[in-house]
């Protein structure tokens, strides 16, 4: 058989590489493309990313691990292992869920006193104190910007499981706290692209428009969309604790928005809706009374 000259082989390989590149580059760009605002309600329910291509649906198994990694980074590595008998709360998610950033949570001292001299020595070589990246970190004087270190894990968690809503909401909370509203908005668009009509994400988007972009009208419209999507959910989702909390948040923000616009009848209507699910109905009743007083003071208005 005639030997092919190396130059020809090289040319053939280069041609093959070029052909493959022209085929794969557009596909690879599409895998990692961030959806635009216009795309977020197109009904595509799954992210078409590189992890899906490599791992298939099995990638969802790793999403919780990625979320745990974000929490571990938030604690600068001081984190219980599977051998430590401890109920792990995700402190990284607490502020995003409206809870206070509690320094002494369940993961505070999961280690307990060292049982032997070897364990006591070992603890000198590993992170051994409960700290939060957002409040000083291990040294006590880490800037809050360092909390950005958790973001890659939250992004990976959403890549692994695009239906994991907590990863989006927690990521958006910290992006907003790091004064990155554009990135937070893009992340929410990505979440909505993968979870069309998700009322929690729509609520967060409204909050972002209201507080970071100071666009009250867009915020109100987004919250109205969130309310519609919430009402379109099944009975079980609406009566769950989280579902009620979300309804309370949406209606309260809509009421606040209407009150700022001077639309007191609408504000009272939303407050009445919030009262049905709120854990503080008396406080809301006071606000309703206040709204009705204002309504009565306005010429040409009637009680709703």
């Amino acid at each position, binding site marked *: 058989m005639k030997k092919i000259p190396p130059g020809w082989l090289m040319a053939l390989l280069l041609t093959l590489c070029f052909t493959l590149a022209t085929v794969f580059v557009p596909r690879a760009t599409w895998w990692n493309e961030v959806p635009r605002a216009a795309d977020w309600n197109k009904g595509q329910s799954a992210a078409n990313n590189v992890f899906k291509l490599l791992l298939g649906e099995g990638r969802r198994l790793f999403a919780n691990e990625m979320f745990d990694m974000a929490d571990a*980074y938030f604690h*600068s*590595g001081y984190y219980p*292992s599977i*051998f*430590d*008998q401890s109920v792990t709360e995700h402190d990284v998610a607490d502020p995003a869920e409206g809870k206070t950033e509690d320094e002494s949570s369940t993961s505070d001292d999961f280690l307990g006193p060292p*049982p*032997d001299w*070897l*364990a006591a*020595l*070992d603890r*000198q*070589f*590993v*992170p051994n104190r409960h700290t939060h990246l957002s409040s000083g*970190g*291990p*040294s006590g004087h*880490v800037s809050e*910007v360092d909390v*950005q*270190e958790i*973001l*890659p*894990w939250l*992004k990976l968690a959403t890549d692994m499981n695009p239906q994991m809503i907590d990863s989006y909401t927690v990521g958006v909370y910290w*992006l907003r706290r790091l004064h*990155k509203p554009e*990135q937070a908005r893009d*992340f929410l668009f990505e979440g909505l692209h993968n979870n069309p009509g998700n009322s929690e994400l729509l609520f967060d988007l409204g909050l972002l428009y209201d507080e970071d972009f100071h666009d009250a009208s867009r915020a109100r419209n987004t919250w109205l969309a969130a309310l519609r999507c919430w009402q379109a959910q099944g009975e079980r989702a609406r009566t769950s604790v989280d579902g009620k909390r979300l309804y309370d948040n949406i209606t309260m923000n809509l009421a606040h928005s209407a009150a700022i616009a001077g639309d007191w009848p609408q504000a009272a209507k939303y407050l009445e809706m919030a009262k049905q699910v709120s854990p503080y109905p008396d406080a809301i009743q006071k606000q309703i009374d206040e709204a009705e007083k204002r309504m009565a003071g306005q010429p040409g208005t009637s009680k709703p």
Partner: protein
Amino acid sequence: MNTIWALTGVVIKELYRRKDLYVLFVLTAVITLAAGSMEFFHDPNIVRYVKDLCMLLIWVSALLITITMAARQIPAERESRTIFPLLAKPVTRGQVILGKFLGCWLASGTALAVFYLFFAVITGSREHYWPVLDYFQAFLLQWIMLGIVTAMTLLGSIVFAAPSSTVTILFIVVAGILFLGRHLNTVALHNAEPLRSLIYTIYFIIPHLELFDVRERVVNDWGLVNWLDCGLAALYAAAYTGLFLLLTWLGFRRKSLT
């Protein structure tokens, strides 16, 4: 002592003649640089995940280099029959063991230094600060740990038939200690007697290699470990290294070379 140094020199030369170090270094560099080139939320200052990945690769590479290198030293000498002229120099069997150990340990230290230099350059260029002492301490502790691993592997190469079985068994043992070692006492407490005492005995017998793993501290900027604690850990490592070398010598002394 000159005899031991001569043997040591041969082992170190072997490190850069073989391709293991270069392949593992290039692999570590490529994976780290690829991970570092990723940008999350348009923020170029996010760095800890790169540090984490690079440190993990350094640990894996260092263990690979050390175990494969130490496992083949004595079997290779026996297989190629160079052990006979070596022992006829005259060199005692104890000197062979010491020379091989020192050679492997220094060679793994050299390789580790190259990896840590790369790590420092990569993280420094992204973080714009250089905690040199922290990196030096991490390097030193890991190198001390590699001393125990080298001695363990030399013992394994005397006990097991072929270098491949030594490498496989040592990898399982070392990985087992690194992953489970520090949790064995917790596991023991959740078991009934006599299993509890058995697990606790294993816990106190095994060399706790995970003591020397300060990756979490380096990645999350926890600062330096107290040097006194490092000294205690070094004494602990010296005791185990000495014990394994003694056992290797005892085994090698009675071993037939034919």
